């Protein structure tokens, strides 16, 4: 969930950096990789560490994502969404990029709210289970 929050923040920051500074992809990754807010997003560091200007970006991003996977706990669908976002990153003009960022911010926010809902449900469940277990233990002791 923290990673999803970081991804939403990251996309918002990408949107701003593209709109007002027109940074290229390498600069976007370099700038955000240095930010502590995104230290959980290991793929940023993996991309910068293995940067090769001759490698097409979508391919380089996939490699970075794959390398960072063991240190991240992304669900398959979130990972897929990230790949899809990266496949459009840098391929259009500024307006197109801003729309792309907005689209994926909305999608990741949806994932985040679902994750929050599930967490809340699970919290309730564990709380109820705890009470039942406590009552059961008390009955057994009596």
């Amino acid at each position, binding site marked *: 969930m923290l990673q999803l929050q970081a991804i939403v923040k990251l996309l918002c920051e990408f949107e701003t950096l*593209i709109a007002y500074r*027109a*940074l*290229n*992809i*390498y600069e976007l990754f370099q700038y955000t990789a240095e930010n502590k807010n995104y230290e959980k997003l290991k793929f940023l560091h993996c991309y910068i560490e293995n940067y090769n*200007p*001759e490698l*097409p*970006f979508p391919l380089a991003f996939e490699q970075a994502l794959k390398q960072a996977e063991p240190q991240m706990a992304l669900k398959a669908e979130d990972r897929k969404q990230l790949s899809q976002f990266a496949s459009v990153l*840098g*391929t*259009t*003009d*500024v307006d*197109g*990029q801003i729309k792309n960022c907005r689209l994926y911010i909305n999608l990741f926010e949806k994932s985040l709210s679902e994750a929050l809902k599930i967490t809340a449900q699970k919290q309730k469940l564990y709380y109820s289970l705890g009470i039942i277990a406590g009552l059961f233990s008390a009955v057994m002791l009596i």
Partner: protein
Amino acid sequence: MTKEFDNAIACLSMKIKKTLSELPQVVKESCFEVRIRVNAPMMLTLNTGQVYVTGNGGTSRLYRDGFTIINKYDIGECFKSICEYSIHSHQQEINNGFITLRGGHRVGLCGTSVIENGKIINIKDISSLNVRIAKQVYKTADEVVALLQKGLMGTVLIGPPSSGKTTILRDLTRQLSSGVLGYPLKVALIDERGELSATAGGVPQNDVGPSCDCLSGYPKAVGIGIAIRTLSPDIIIFDEIGTSEEMGAVNESLNAGVTVITSIHAGNEADFLKKPQGLALLQSGAFEHFVFLKSKDEPSVVQKIVGREVLALEAGRNFGNLPLYHLDGSDLWKQAERTGVTAAGNR
């Protein structure tokens, strides 16, 4: 030159780069343009003319079947690579029709323009790329420098396309900024199309000297205004004056006491005087020296240098009683006559 060639093709797609890297050293050394067209073999412009790239490390003047053909995918990959996979960062350059690479090389883009409100907002379906290998030519501005050593005055370089106007301006920027006049000059370089400084990633790729401020990508008229207000330059240099806004900005710099050096397209003196822009430059009083260059066959060679007054008389021969006034109101004709240059029989 081989290093420059390798440097210029580094941005191209793997397939194209591999094909070009197999070329013999001598070809790389004499190459100054690589043309990549869809469904055609690559073409090189060498000192000796144009040749096709055969694909096996060779070149040929004649087209034959079996040459390595470039397809749409290759061009697309090249385009993305040239943009560093960040088209949004190069939008302005794309709209201008070319992208400047590190090293000062330039890639011209051909395709289908997308127009909105009469302005190009994008180029789609890129069909050909023209990689121009940058080479800064030193000492081409020596004659103009010698002229300015007698007094720093507004100067216009006039010549047909490919006559070396930009090359001379670039060298002039370097020399003036390096203190060739015996004292350091604050030079403001207004580089709207990135041709003079070839700024990439914020760093001028051409040698523009140690005391030059580059305003890269600024529309010339805006850049001149900003330079006057914020940089307090001794001299402003920019390429290809053309619009009335730019002329207005030159007048502004004249009022601010800043010397301007620029260039304009014109085949010869008569051609220059036929142009409204030419006459406007003459009338403004901002320029004292008019430097005419030879043709593209002899690039960067000065044909003649004409003073403002002499050129004003020439304009009078062609245009009769055309009012040629300084901005300060003095009559250029009278001034020319006072200095002994007469237009007898022409008025």
